[in-house]
């Protein structure tokens, strides 16, 4: 090692932190180098002086004061611990209530927020006369008063809104379902049709429920237009069964849970078609398909055809979720399609621009 390097290692040499070889080399150098020897002596003396510094004594109160601070902090920590975890007789009920609240909140969120489902591709086949004939005939035109009494306030409100939007023109009548399944008018049955107009009032036999929809009132006046034979047949059968249906509807107590009605639907998941409008030549103009997903989700799609049966487009509407307006009625904001269910399995579908269409179950 050179002189300078040895000079810098003298501090370590004093502490004995050099290897045996380095120590020998340094000592060999010190024999000949007076500068390093003097430096080593002064360094040793300096360290001795430093080590002679007397230690100061801590004040008598220091340990006591220190422990007082430590104890205070420990108690605060323990107090916080107790506040968080104790006592159980307070903590458990709070936790139970919180868990219950979270469970209820999660349930309602799950009920109201449904994942978006894709609507299945609609078949694009043309409707042959056989298919037209196979279209399910409505069971009844007029819901019984008892049935109408269900969900009265909201239904009345929606119906009145719908009536307001419907243009009272001859074209509007062409959209009415009563034109859908009707064969050419049979004059012999006009009397029955006239009787049908009186039927709801007679069937009711008692004061009409307050708030009955304007739509239904308009339906009662509908016989002013020629009633097709098919329609009249429907009316006849409806007249025969109306008493039974009424009694069925009445069997549902006002406070009864109507969710059961929805839950026992068997058409869930199947796509059903309804011819909503026809061209003057009788071919379907507008077909609506719907699919029941669950008790509060319905998918609806519209298909439009020209007079030759050529499909011109499908306006698919994916109603993956919607708010249940009443227990048995669905409303979907954009097109205001509704599906209503009744205790006997009868359901009807409706839209703002059209009348209600009773669907065969």
């Amino acid at each position, binding site marked *: 090692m050179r002189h300078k390097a040895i000079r810098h290692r003298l501090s370590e040499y004093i*502490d*004995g932190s050099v290897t045996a070889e380095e120590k020998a080399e340094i000592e060999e150098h010190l024999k000949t180098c007076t500068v390093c020897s003097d430096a080593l002596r002064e*360094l040793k003396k*300096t360290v001795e002086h430093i080590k*002679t510094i007397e230690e100061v004594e801590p004040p008598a109160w*220091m340990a006591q004061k220190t422990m007082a601070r430590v104890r205070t902090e420990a108690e605060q920590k323990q107090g916080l611990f107790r506040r968080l975890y104790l006592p159980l007789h307070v903590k458990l009920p709070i936790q139970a209530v919180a868990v219950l609240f979270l469970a209820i909140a999660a349930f309602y969120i799950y009920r109201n927020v449904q994942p978006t489902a894709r609507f299945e591709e609609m078949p694009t086949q043309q409707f042959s006369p056989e298919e037209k004939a196979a279209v399910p005939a409505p069971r009844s035109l007029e819901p019984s008063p008892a049935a109408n009494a269900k969900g009265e306030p909201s239904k009345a409100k929606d119906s009145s809104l719908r009536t307001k939007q419907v243009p009272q023109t001859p074209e509007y009548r062409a959209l009415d379902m009563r034109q859908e399944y009707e064969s050419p008018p049979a004059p012999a049955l006009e009397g029955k049709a006239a009787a049908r107009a009186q039927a709801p009032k007679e069937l009711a036999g008692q004061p009409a429920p307050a708030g009955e929809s304007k739509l239904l009132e308009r339906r009662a006046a509908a016989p002013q237009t020629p009633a097709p034979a098919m329609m009249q047949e429907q009316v006849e059968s409806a007249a025969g069964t109306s008493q039974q249906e009424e009694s069925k509807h009445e069997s549902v107590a006002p406070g009864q849970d109507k969710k059961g009605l929805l839950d026992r639907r068997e058409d869930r998941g199947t796509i059903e078609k309804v011819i909503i409008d026809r061209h003057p030549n009788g071919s379907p103009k507008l077909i609506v398909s719907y699919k029941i997903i669950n008790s509060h989700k319905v998918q609806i799609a519209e298909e439009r055809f020209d007079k030759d049966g050529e499909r011109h487009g499908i306006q698919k509407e994916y109603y993956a979720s919607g708010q249940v307006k009443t227990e048995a009625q669905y409303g979907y904001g954009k097109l205001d399609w509704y599906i209503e269910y009744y205790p006997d399995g009868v359901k009807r579908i409706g839209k703002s621009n059209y009348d209600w269409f009773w669907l065969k179950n």
Partner: protein
Amino acid sequence: MGNETNSLAALSYNKGSTGIPPADDDAGLVARSRQGDLDAFEQLVIKHQKRMLNTAYRLIGDYDEACEVVQDAFVSAHRNIKTFRGDSKFTTWLTAITVNLSKNRLKHLKSRQGHEAYSLDDPVETKDGAITIDPPSTAPSVLDRLEKCDVQNRVQDCIKVLDPDFREVLVLRDLQDLSYEEIGDLLKIPGGTVKSRLFRAREMVKDCLKRVMGEL
């Protein structure tokens, strides 16, 4: 002879460098303290407060401030004693806390001095006009100073003027007898840096003492 003693010290240092944790006399008290035994921790306080106070005092140079720092160090040690894994001696861990707090206190004191709003020598306005502040001095009288003007005070003064980085290495090595390895672990600096800082610190104190004392 001195060299032999130093060699033994070096031996113990080398033993320590093998990675085997040194046996800690405080292990029992520390274990009890970790379980919340405040009496055990009090024994640790009583046992180590003097050593910590001297470390802090030599680093800060102010007795009252050093007392505050030592209290803070013990409170901090108690708060974090569950994180002490026993890889090093309890005293080394405690010294590290004390050194860090002392450094922080030094910085704080320096910044406070740097932000003094006025000088003590500035005259102040009173009803009778401007007067010069002449507060009573807490320093020892001239006679006391003459009596105490011995080597120790001069050494202490020379240590005081050292840069904090050099001062802490010198204090830990020559006053607290910590090994190079312990100092390196404690200050989080390499062993070579410890050696070079210690060499320079000793050289500076030596030069300082030569200036104030003449010959060593």
